[in-house]
């Protein structure tokens, strides 16, 4: 699989934030649907056994896989353009990430900006290390392919 990273930016901001920016070729209304309609979310997140999303202020979401789940309240939502929600990991409220997602029209497509705000620098570092090690087998496999090809 050929990964072109030109459409994706991922940066650390300040002590607690990870910011991801991604461009889509489809307009915000469609991107919003893919982000908020459970039937669509399941298609691209994959392997879920439960998927609920009520994208309204006061609503909540619950994404569950065989061994873990993410859930939390929707703090703010402005349909098609903006949502702020909190993510807890497997019901552990001490794992607290506030995620702000903004969709802006960008040409004929959409520029999505996601800000993930951790409780403190340590929590962000742990999340990075965890995410990294969890996905390392996949990353390593790809690096080996690169190295072999090079």
């Amino acid at each position: 699989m050929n990964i072109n990273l030109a459409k994706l930016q991922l940066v650390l901001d300040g002590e607690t934030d990870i910011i991801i920016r991604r461009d889509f070729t489809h307009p915000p209304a469609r991107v919003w649907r893919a982000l908020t309609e459970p039937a669509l979310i399941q298609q691209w997140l994959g392997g879920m056994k439960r998927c609920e999303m009520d994208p309204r202020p006061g609503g909540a979401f619950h994404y569950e896989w065989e061994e873990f789940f993410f859930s939390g309240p929707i703090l703010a939502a402005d349909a098609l353009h903006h949502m702020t929600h909190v993510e807890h990991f497997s019901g552990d409220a001490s794992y607290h990430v506030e995620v702000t997602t903004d969709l802006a029209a960008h040409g004929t497509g959409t520029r999505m900006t996601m800000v993930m705000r951790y409780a403190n620098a340590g929590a962000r570092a742990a999340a990075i290390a965890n995410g990294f090690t969890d996905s390392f087998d996949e990353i390593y496999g790809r690096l080996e392919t690169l190295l072999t090809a090079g």
Partner: protein
Amino acid sequence: MIILDQSFAALADPTRRAIIARLAKGEATVQDLARPFSISQPAISRHLKVLEEAGLIETRIDGTARPRRLKPDAVAALWDWLGQYRALWEMQFQKMDAVLDGLSDESERSTS
């Protein structure tokens, strides 16, 4: 050109990656680390030595205990590698692209 440096080589081993994942949750002793694995404490100690030499972890001296922990700099170093991690996000978003591509026809039908 990609250089296989010591850290990269150290993380090529799945047990050592599991140890790093455990230490990301907080410091731990050799006994703590050996528990979930079906290998001996000396074997764990050898893995820890490799990780320490690679600069990924450090030892804290606490009386007679010698808990290991991730080096803060190592997390930053991991982040440098996260150019690769970006690729994972991108893969996820490419799946979303495919869902969006599937949606367009349907949307056009419903608006026509």
